[in-house]
């Protein structure tokens, strides 16, 4: 959005239907390197579906996606159904992204350190020793020093989410996707995760964050996007979106009558 920085995400006309229900009805979104985009919206508005379309966990029925210069390998069969044109390109595209889930989704059969080193080793072909060394650095960074040998189930939710963020950082992704990363946490654990994300934003990471944390969205984002019924209802810098000139619909969403 600032012209000097390279574009990391270019999504155009993303459409997705589940059965008869059109969940996404043409979403366009760009992000430049260092952008922190908060995606807000009511339950069922299609936020998660949009995020999952970006790394093709869901296949959009229409639209194009380009991440760090690589187009998503989407094709359509004779009946108009979306399919993957090239599994190799798909994995290459996904390897440029990283996702942090509401429920952490750490691999329960791996220790903390193996969770973090897995993608560098098994996706990017990094030597294991190097991956483990870097994983230890990341553990320090997310404040989990000393937990390398722990199993996911031995950690609290906040700790698991911080490990999941370290796992996401391990591949040095061009684009990080967060789907309500604090929604499954006890209120007193939310802080530790938000602080970490704030630090990442300060480092210039490109992040798309679906969240219900309004204060975080206002203070940390470079852009705020309001999704409603599968379309972007309004978007803009937080100063505008949380100011008096925001769209009435978004204001209604922020403070329901």
């Amino acid at each position: 959005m600032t012209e000097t920085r390279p574009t990391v995400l270019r999504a155009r006309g993303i459409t997705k239907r589940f059965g008869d229900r059109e969940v996404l009805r043409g979403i366009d979104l760009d992000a430049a390197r260092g952008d922190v985009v908060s995606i807000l919206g009511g339950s069922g508005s299609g936020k998660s579906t949009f995020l999952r379309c970006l790394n093709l966990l869901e296949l959009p029925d229409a639209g194009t996606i380009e991440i760090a210069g690589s187009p998503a390998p989407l094709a359509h069969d004779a009946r108009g159904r979306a399919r993957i044109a090239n599994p190799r390109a798909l994995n290459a595209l996904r390897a440029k992204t990283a996702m942090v889930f509401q429920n952490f989704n750490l691999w329960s059969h791996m220790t903390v350190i193996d969770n973090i080193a897995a993608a560098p080793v098994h996706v990017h072909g990094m030597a294991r020793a190097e991956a483990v060394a870097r994983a230890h650095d990341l553990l320090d960074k997310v404040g989990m020093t000393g937990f390398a040998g722990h199993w996911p189930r031995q950690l609290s939710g906040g700790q698991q989410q911080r490990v999941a963020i370290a796992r996401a950082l391990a591949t040095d992704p061009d684009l990080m996707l967060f789907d309500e990363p604090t929604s499954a946490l006890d209120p007193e654990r939310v802080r530790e995760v938000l602080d970490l994300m704030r630090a990442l934003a300060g480092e210039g990471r490109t992040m798309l964050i679906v969240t219900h944390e309004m204060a975080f969205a206002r203070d940390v984002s470079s852009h705020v996007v309001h999704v409603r019924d599968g379309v972007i209802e309004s978007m803009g810098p937080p100063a505008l979106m949380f100011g008096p000139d925001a769209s009435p619909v978004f204001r209604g969403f922020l403070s329901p009558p």
Partner: protein
Amino acid sequence: MMGESGTGESGFLADTALAIVAAVPVTLALFVACAVGASLLAGVLVAAQQGRVGGLVARAWIFVFRGTPLLLQIFMVYYGLAALGPVRHGPLWPAFRDPLFCAFLAMTCCCSAYIAEVLRAALAAIPPGQIEAARACGMARWTLGRRIVVPQMVRLALPAYGNELVMMLKSTSLASSVTVLDVTGVAQQVIAHSYRTVEVFCLAAAVYLGLTAALTWLLRRIERRLDPAGGR
């Protein structure tokens, strides 16, 4: 055969125990061969179930072998196949002539059906979010299977799989019905000469108890090793 060396009650029991223990290698060999064969076959069945045609074949296989008694299957392989000209005059006859092989084949087919069901249930129990996390970071299909799906499946399947193995160990006794001299076969032989059903079967039962106890211990060790945090 019995009798000469035995001096009274304790002599008979000692002789019988020796004869039965001497048959343990046969029982164990049959069990290990079946465990390996059935597990590999079950893996193939589960893999086949991912496809459409393979799924039909695998389901039919499981339906047939789970739905009929193992004893009947052993008889079918041993007597039934031997009655077919192509088997009896074919190149495989030396194998089918051997009762131990027939018992192995029938048990492997039967147990593969049970283990396949155990593996299928384990596959279904893998948290989908963990597979999604692997896909989201760009893991290739095969890597995902090897690094995420199979290790999780093994862990989830282990308790039920261990149960199947214990059942299988005991089922090896059915091989005695086609003249295999395993622990049960030898016990029956001793009974035929001594007419002392209760004592001999008790000794055989004690041997099976020992074997299943050892197997259970081994399985528990593996379980603990794969999931050290489990017993926390």
